[in-house]
């Protein structure tokens, strides 16, 4: 039996090494399902899953949708605009309405840190965090771990540098937790204005320049740099960012070993990563995407092991 995950997947910070390993191991057979002519197994047949995306996202939502459909679940997509949410309905009411429709699982992406936990505490359905503000994006962290494990055969002792806007990145946080729990060494690299001041307290090494990261790491996880950061004054320009911190093939050529390059996508080609790197031999960006569906199938499969008990009082309702 795999160790139970609990009702929800909110983040990797509080998972154990055994739980994370179980998810990755469970993802393996699901990779095979996506290679079959009929890419479907009946494991979640009859389950209803709502993809509640308050922030627009194409790739993550599609990845979840494929994962859900390949498990034979029934899926419904709710996007923020054009829904009751944009008319002022609160997150609490949205949650209660979903529960009243006896939804089995909710996959939520929201702009506020803590929104996934907020929802999970209030409804009986399983809640999967598809990204909450700057807090965590656990399935992305997991698929990055799986991709690294595929490539290196292990995570323990691996040196992984997370490069870019760590301050605003939920992908960075999930990766940090997942890698630390599985025994990797974690480095962060980026302009100081984009690194949390006390990040070293989490147990990571701060690498001041991208050249340092390339010398040090076995793998680079390159984060997307958003245009808004320039507009908010964190960096002077995207061009300067590329010149000083960009992962270019020139810089990679000076690496002491064959580096593996990951990127959560979508990429800003020519900003944080050059095209020839993204499309080059060290890039595992496409395997990441493939692994994404398998990891999400594994997570949904493991969480659905316990269906909501509709006879029990909803969490948070015990007394008010």
């Amino acid at each position, binding site marked *: 039996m795999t160790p139970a995950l609990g009702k929800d997947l909110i983040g990797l*910070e509080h998972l154990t090494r055994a739980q994370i390993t179980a998810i990755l191991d469970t993802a393996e057979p699901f990779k095979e399902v996506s290679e079959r002519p009929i890419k479907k197994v009946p494991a979640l047949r009859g389950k209803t899953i709502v993809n509640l995306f308050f922030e627009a996202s194409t790739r993550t939502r599609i990845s979840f949708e494929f994962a859900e459909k390949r498990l034979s679940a029934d899926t419904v997509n709710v996007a923020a605009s054009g829904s009751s949410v944009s008319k002022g309905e*609160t*997150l*609490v009411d949205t949650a209660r309405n979903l529960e009243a429709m006896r939804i089995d699982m909710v996959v939520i992406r*929201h702009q*506020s*840190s*803590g*929104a996934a*936990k*907020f929802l999970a505490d209030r409804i009986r359905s399983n809640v999967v965090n598809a990204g*909450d*503000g*700057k*807090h*965590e994006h656990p399935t992305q962290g997991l698929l990055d771990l799986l991709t690294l494990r595929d490539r290196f055969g292990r995570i323990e002792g691996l040196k992984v540098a997370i490069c870019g806007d760590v301050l605003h990145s*939920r992908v960075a*946080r999930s990766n940090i937790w997942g890698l630390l729990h599985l025994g990797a060494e974690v480095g962060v690299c980026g302009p100081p204005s984009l690194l*949390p*001041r*006390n*990040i070293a*307290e*989490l147990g990571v090494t701060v690498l001041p320049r991208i050249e340092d990261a390339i010398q040090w790491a076995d793998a680079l996880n390159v984060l997307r740099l958003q245009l808004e950061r320039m507009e908010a004054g964190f960096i002077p320009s995207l061009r300067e960012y590329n010149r000083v911190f960009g992962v270019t093939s020139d810089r990679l050529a000076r690496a002491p070993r064959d580096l593996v390059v990951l990127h959560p996508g979508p990429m800003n080609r020519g900003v944080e990563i050059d095209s020839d790197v993204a499309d080059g031999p060290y890039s595992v960006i496409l395997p990441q995407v493939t692994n994404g569906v398998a990891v999400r199938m594994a997570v949904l499969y493991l969480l659905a092991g316990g269906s909501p008990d509709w006879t029990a009082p909803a969490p948070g309702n015990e007394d008010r």
Partner: protein
Amino acid sequence: MRPMLIQGGRVIDPSRRTDGVADVYLAEGRIESVGMNIPVGPDVEVVDARGKVVGPGLIDIHVHLREPGQEDLETIATGAMAAAAGGFTGICAMPNTDPVTDNQAAVGFIVRQAIRAAKARVYPIGAITMGQKGHQLAEFGEMVGAGAVAVSDDGHPVISSHMMRTALEYAQVFGIPVADHCEDPTLSAGGSMHEGIVATRLGLKGIPSAAEEIMVARDILLAELTGGHVHLCHMSTRGSVEIIRRAKDRGIRVTAEACPHHFTLTHERVRDYDTNAKMNPPLREAEDVEAIRQALKDGTIDCIATDHAPHHYDAKERAFEEAPNGITGLETALGLGIRELVLPGLLTLPELLARMSTLPARLCHLPGGTLGGGAPADLVVFDPEAFWSVDPARSFSKSRNTPFGGESLPGVVALTLVDGRIAFRQPE
């Protein structure tokens, strides 16, 4: 109203540094005398205060009553009642109401509502600038004439140093303090908790301590420049304490307050995104809490004020970043003061009462904070050793937003007297 004799309590008067078992005799809304074997007439009402402390009524110079504008959160009446239940005989109402209290009619309204409520006294604080927008000075003179005891744009910092300077100069005409909410908004923008390791874990944008300290330093420099009296609201960082200490050493007219939550809780309390731990300034680190406590001991921080900030349940029932800032505080202040400062031996009970009654009164030039003969009969009688459990559902405030629900606090208020009338009496 019958005269009253409060008998056998431990009478503490920080204003005259007295502390001993005595009787207190009140008549016609005034404290007639304090002593033993006071001769009294037959008509007197006797209150047995044996085993309890009798002190000057507590005074809270930083309270948000939501009237006018948001009466569903709190009214002047319910706030004054909650204050009395917490042992307060006087509270100062901040002007960030809707509409803002920036003119004599608005000030007068608060005064009248408070009189009608007939619980704790409510002293209005007027706005520094019209609408608290920071552009045009409000009419200090008219507001003081109608009853205002200080000016503040609290809720917002006074961003323009020129405006703050002008306010400090002009306020001297009326002898009132200018109270500033110290926050550099360009550093704090978008932040919802202290900038530290907890914010990093939770993925929340943080408010660095420097955001407060920059304005503390600025306000002190302006107080020095103008000779005016600046009062610094809700201090929360060790850096601020340091700056104030040095300024006081140099004789600058600066006073400061701190809230109970800033000497009790740290940013760790925000675990799991609890919006009842969200306020501005935010909860800080353990070293900051320790510095605030020490500052209350050595007088760098003059008094304790609650920054009582009622919010609706629905408003707080939101993702952390979207919830409003603030917690209630009137009913838990005394208990936290005793538990966090007196019981560990940092302050004596008379020192605590000085910080919660005598000094706030002095700072805002209010009557009260003393048991001297002829003083208004504003007293609190409480048992510092009895414990009670905080139940937000049974609060006298209309709002329930407190992080202390379920906690056990010492200091049960038995009686709160305002003007010699019973404003609050503990049910048996």
